């Protein structure tokens, strides 16, 4: 029962506003010590965890390439192109991206999108280009935040429909070994579809409604300037 103290460490650490890495490490060590792990076992757990999760950071190697194509004006071109298409508002564009992101993730193509390789170089500038001509800072921030959210929501609730994805293999692996069930990946994947549809509807509607919010923000900013 005392292991739950580790969660208290996390909550207090974040409430006080300490560096998040420090908080999480301290919580991990506390959990390990109270759980009766030796110092070496805790260090081993950290080491194995780090070695096993290096894949999270692989996107770093794409950054120099993204930087290079930005230098040659990709963002500018994306923005110019989209501002000519009047039907495509910011909200509609992001809703279409959500649909594409979720659809491709559902057939296993999770690397097509992503914040480093798609949102920063293409989707965010296109979404900004589709908005009104002069974009105040607050509107830009909002557009970027929603561009990132379209990518993440699409990925999360699309990838689980594909059978060979980590989360599904974790579910079958865990319950089959722990409880002696014989669940197949396809059984789990099928039951991700209803939630996937709900996610698409909820976030899609919010993205389409985003246009109105942006207009309001832009009008407010104009008023401030007029004053």
């Amino acid at each position, binding site marked *: *029962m005392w*292991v*739950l103290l580790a969660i208290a460490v996390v*909550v207090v650490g974040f409430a006080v506003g300490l560096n*998040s*890495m*420090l908080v*999480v*490490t301290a919580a*991990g*060590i506390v*959990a390990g010590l109270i*759980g009766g*792990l030796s110092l*070496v076992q*805790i*260090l*081993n*757990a*950290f*080491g*194995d*965890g*780090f070695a*096993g999760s290096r894949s*999270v950071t692989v996107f*770093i*190697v794409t950054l*120099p390439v993204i930087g290079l194509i930005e230098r040659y004006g990709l963002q500018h071109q994306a923005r110019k192109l989209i501002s000519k298409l009047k039907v495509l508002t910011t909200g509609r564009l992001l809703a279409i991206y959500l649909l594409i992101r979720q659809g491709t993730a559902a057939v296993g193509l999770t690397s097509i999108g992503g*914040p*480093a390789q798609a*949102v*920063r170089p293409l989707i*965010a500038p296109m979404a900004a280009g589709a908005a009104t001509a002069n974009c105040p800072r607050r509107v830009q*921030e909002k557009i*970027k*935040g929603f*561009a*990132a*959210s379209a990518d*993440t*929501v699409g990925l*999360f*609730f699309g990838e689980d429909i594909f059978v060979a994805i980590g*989360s*599904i293999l974790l579910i079958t692996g*865990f*319950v089959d070994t*722990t409880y002696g069930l014989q*669940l197949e990946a396809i*059984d*789990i994947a*099928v*039951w991700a579809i209803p*939630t996937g549809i*709900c*996610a698409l509807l*909820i*976030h899609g509607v*919010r993205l389409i409604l985003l246009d109105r919010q942006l207009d309001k923000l832009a009008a407010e900013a104009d008023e401030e300037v007029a004053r």
Partner: protein
Amino acid sequence: MIKVEWFYWLCGLFFGLIALQVINDRSNPKRIGSAAFWGILGLSFGYGTFVVNKQGPSWLLGIAVIGLALLATLGLLFNASGVGKAVGRVTDHLVPKGSLIAAVALYCIGMAVFTIIMGNAFAAFPVMTAAVGWPLLVQQFDGTPAVVFAIGMLAGFCGTLCTPMAANFNLVPAALLELKDQYGPIKAQIPTAVPLLACNIALMYVFAF
């Protein structure tokens, strides 16, 4: 054949180059500390290969990681020390005996809350499944396992949308897009995550029993 380890070495090399750039930047008052951070991070990426292949002791890397204090390792340690069973004992007292909807809500909301705390639905899944999903929903209420576990995991994903602990999904995009407010993506996602969590509870209640 290209191996994934090569990419880790490439990442390590990249971090090493950053370390060199930082140490040569004389205008940076914290350059020694920063360079040490990037340098250790780079070396850890290379050394990780030997740990995975069981050619080197992993505690050595553990010491380096404590120095770097990495987010992704928390769930592993939580599990190794038996947090799941402890949560089960707490939840026993929380659910009114025999209420199916309360048990479903507890499993889904628990998945979301644990994911928010740990930053990772994968870490929350074994904990909440051992505490509620298996003993209550599957064994006691006779729920269909595939539906319970599939939707339970997705309830956890709703938590991932809301938490700065899931740095690679929520904070990294904010940094990549140069947002002034690093919580911008989370703020855009919370109003979707909350109704979607309610949908998950309803879907599990309708389809699993």
